C-alpha cells in the first residue's frame, strides 16, 4: 500500500475532481485547504472510505486572522475553520481547513458525520461567532446565553467589555 499521505491526496483528487485542494505539509503532518461548500462531502468521504477511515474528530476550532494580508486563497476571508481528524486504524492525523468570510460567517456543520463535532462546533460558535448551518443545537457553551460578544475574536478586548456580564448584587 502506498503511504497514506499519497493515498489521501490521490483519492481526493480522483473523487472530487472539481474541488480545488491545496495540500501542504509541516513536520510530516498533512494539511488540506479547500472551499467551505464541500466540507460535509469531503469529511464524509474521509470517514467512510475503507482505506482511510478517519473515524475520530479530535477537534474543531477556528483562526481569526484579523488583518491578514497575502491570503493563501487570494481572498480576504477573516476566519479559517480547522478540523483535526485521526484515522485510528492507520494511525494517521490530518488537518482540514476551510476559509470563512466575515459577511455571512457560516459554514456547514459536520456533526452529521462525527457526533463529537456537535459540541466542538458549539464551542467554536461561542468563541468566534461562526454559524454552523444545520447544526442540531447551536447554543453557547461557556459564556452566558445572553452574552453578545465573541471573546476569541481579535477585536475583543482582553479584559472584556465592562458591564457585558452581570455580577450578583452585593
Amino acid at each position, binding site marked *: 500500500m502506498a503511504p497514506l499521505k499519497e493515498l489521501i491526496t490521490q483519492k481526493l483528487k480522483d473523487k472530487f475532481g472539481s474541488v480545488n485542494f491545496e495540500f501542504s505539509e509541516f513536520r510530516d503532518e498533512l494539511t488540506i485547504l479547500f472551499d467551505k461548500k464541500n466540507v460535509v462531502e469531503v469529511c464524509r468521504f474521509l470517514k467512510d472510505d475503507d482505506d482511510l477511515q478517519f473515524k475520530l474528530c479530535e477537534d474543531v476550532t477556528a483562526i481569526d486572522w484579523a488583518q491578514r494580508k497575502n491570503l493563501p486563497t487570494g481572498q480576504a476571508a477573516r476566519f479559517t475553520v480547522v478540523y483535526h481528524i485521526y484515522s485510528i486504524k492507520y494511525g494517521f492525523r490530518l488537518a482540514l481547513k476551510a476559509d470563512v468570510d466575515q459577511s455571512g460567517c457560516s459554514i456547514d456543520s459536520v456533526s452529521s458525520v462525527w457526533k463529537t463535532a456537535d459540541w466542538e462546533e458549539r464551542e467554536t460558535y461561542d468563541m468566534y461567532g461562526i454559524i454552523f448551518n444545520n447544526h442540531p443545537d447551536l447554543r453557547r457553551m*461557556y*459564556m*452566558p*446565553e*445572553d452574552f453578545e460578544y465573541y*471573546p476569541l475574536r481579535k477585536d*475583543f*478586548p*482582553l*479584559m*472584556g*467589555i465592562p458591564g457585558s*456580564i*452581570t*455580577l*450578583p*448584587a*452585593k
Partner: protein
Amino acid sequence: MGLEAKLTHDGIITSTIDAVVAWSRKNSVWPMPMGISCCAIEMMAAGDPKYDIARFGSEVMRFTPRQCDLMIVAGTVTYKMAHVVKKIYDQMPDPKWVIAMGACTSSGGMYRSYNVVQGIDQFLPVDVYLAGCPPRPENLLNALMQIQEKIGRTKAREFQDKKLPGIAVNQNN
C-alpha cells in the same frame, strides 16, 4: 480541660453572655467548602491528620450551606460561577463569615481575563483575604485563626436585627 481540677465544690464560673457566646461560636466554626479549583486541594489537606483543622473545631465541612458559619471560597470565580457562589452564600444562616482563599479569589490572580471576577469582594463581603497560589494549609489555618479572633470580638446580639437578604432570581442560572 484542666479547668475542672482547679474548681472545687460546685464549680460555678461567672461570665458575660457575650463572652460565652463568642467563645462557643469561635470554637465551632463550621466551614462551607466552596472548592472551585486547585485551592480546594489545599483546603482538603488542611482537614487531614497532618494539619488537622479539627484542632480549631472546624472539621465539620458541611456540604449544605444551611449548617455553615464560614464560607471558604477556594478557587477561581468566573462570572458564571459568581451567581452560584452568591446563591449559596445567601442560603447560609447569619452570623456568617467569608474567607477569600488564594490569589484568584482575592484579586483574579493570574487570570487577568474577561471571564474571571477580579476579586470576589465585588459581590461578597470578605472577612479574610488569604495570599498564596495556592496557599499552604498552615496559611488557611492562620486565616481561620484570624476569623476566630474576629468572632471573639463580636457581641451576642449583634446579628439579631440583621435584615434578611433579598432573594435574587436569575433565569440563566
